[in-house]
């Protein structure tokens, strides 16, 4: 696969002296969904704005589809679609006109069939003649997406696409992202909803205080940092850990009616088999058994805390 985006040593500081990006390196492969995770103020939006040409970089180079974003800005920007975080739309204009405008602005010839397709895909077709101000917040967000897609980008940035959006629309949005991926569009989304990254991303980058802390395959990330817990629910509660189980790393939970065993998924021996036989040897009767893998959220919180510690 070829690289659609390559960022090298990207720095951005503001006149106030604030360093929003402290040397970011990032490569994104064509066709993948990349999620950029980070707390508020981490530099997610600054990174996107700089790549898209909304703010000037202080140092570093960015290439989109092999084109330098400054030297070959026309070629680079033609490939990019941007859905901003804020709902920035001209309130008095009709939906279809703002979408047509976006296509024209990117220098693409009129193509009403395509615009219709995009609006239909986003369930906006019956609203095409409505003024933007008449739309709900979720609909406006769809209009932003339609505008970004109107010029057929190869690389789509979604900056917090589902911030403040209800569950249904969020699922819709994820479906749209999935369809775009099928069409070969590379998607970079920022979010602070971990579940979102977990649900749709192929790779994840964690950014905090202007630095990329890590970039990794989602599954690998979860595997590498994932701790698993086994919760052993008991028929009769215990007050302390029985003698025969003292060698295990067990904790009493749920007022003694459960034991929690933490283990590493990647370890050669998880010790589960032996633990379970020792549990029955200790005379404990099981009511239920469940295992839980730490979510990206927990991984993420750990990472950011480590960084700030």
């Amino acid at each position: 696969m070829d690289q659609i985006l390559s960022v090298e040593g990207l720095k951005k500081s503001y006149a106030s002296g604030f360093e929003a990006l402290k040397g970011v390196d990032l490569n994104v492969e064509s066709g993948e969904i990349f999620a950029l995770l980070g707390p508020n103020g981490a530099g997610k939006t600054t990174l996107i704005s700089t790549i898209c040409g909304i703010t000037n970089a202080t140092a570093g180079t960015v290439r989109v589809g092999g084109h330098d974003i400054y030297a070959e800005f026309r070629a680079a920007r033609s490939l990019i679609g941007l859905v901003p975080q804020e709902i920035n739309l001209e309130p008095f204009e009709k939906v279809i006109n703002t979408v047509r405008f976006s296509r024209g602005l990117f220098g693409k010839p009129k193509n009403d069939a395509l615009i219709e397709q995009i609006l239909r895909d986003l369930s906006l077709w019956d609203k095409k003649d409505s003024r933007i101000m008449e739309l709900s917040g979720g609909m406006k967000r769809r209009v932003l997406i339609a505008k970004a897609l109107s010029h057929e980008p190869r690389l789509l940035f979604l900056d917090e696409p589902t911030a403040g959006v209800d569950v249904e629309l969020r699922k819709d949005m994820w479906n749209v992202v999935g369809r775009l991926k099928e069409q070969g569009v590379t998607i970079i989304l920022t979010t602070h909803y971990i579940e979102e990254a977990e649900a749709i991303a192929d790779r994840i980058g964690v950014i905090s205080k202007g630095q990329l802390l890590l970039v990794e395959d989602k599954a690998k990330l979860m595997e590498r940092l994932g701790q698993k817990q086994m919760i052993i629910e008991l028929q009769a509660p215990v007050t302390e850990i029985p003698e025969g189980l003292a060698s295990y790393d067990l904790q009493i939970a749920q007022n003694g009616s459960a034991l929690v065993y933490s283990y590493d998924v990647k370890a050669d021996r998880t010790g589960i088999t032996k633990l379970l036989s020792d549990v029955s040897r200790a005379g404990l009767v099981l009511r239920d058994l469940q295992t839980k893998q730490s979510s990206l959220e927990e991984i993420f919180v750990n990472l950011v805390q480590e960084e700030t510690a």
Partner: protein
Amino acid sequence: MNLTAIKAIYLFEMARFFRTLTQSFISPVISTSLYFVVFGAAIGSRIQEVDGIGYGAFIVPGLIMLSVMTQSISNGSFGIYFPKFIGTIYELLSAPVTFLEITIGYVGAAATKSLFIGLVILGTSALFVDLTILHPLPMLLFLVLTCLSFSLLGFIIGIWAGNFEQLQLVPLLIVTPLVFLGGSFYSISMLPPFWQWVTMFNPVVYLISGFRWAFFGAADVPVIASLGAISLFTVICVVTIGWIFKTGWRIRN
């Protein structure tokens, strides 16, 4: 040159104008009529001729210039300030367009609107006074150049302005006085010598004088000076915009 983009910006801006076409049309008609009632009929009847021209007719070029200049500035500044204010400027900045193309689109639309208003005022004036235009083509040239250069100035103001107050500041504090004191309603030769000399530093004098010459053949300053002044003014605006775009001043922080 991304002509499609220029066209898209231009048409999008003009759509805003057409949405409010009635207002755009009626307000200059009414304000022009008011000027004629006050200056033409009420006061004008007591004023003899100025430079051999009836006062009612004499004020027509100044009246057109007054509206065209203020309209150009307000159109030009609002056109670019509005996207900044509501945030849609992100799209312009991330599009594969140069600032030259953005400027042509916005300033072109702003100038078109003021040209339209200028022509409406001219038409309205013809209902009140007997108008003959001695040099129609130079008249049009002056009109178009004024629309363009003041729309460019407005564009700069729109980029500079950080809020709506600032947007009004320059037109109110600088441009309106310059236009009123630029001989819209009187001939410079009517002033005492000292003030005639001071007035020569007002760039608007040259524009109104040149425009009036195109109508009546009489001017306060030589026509070539008028043409030079408006060309110089346009060049200054273009260079300023070039600098703004090169540095990203007030746009790409």
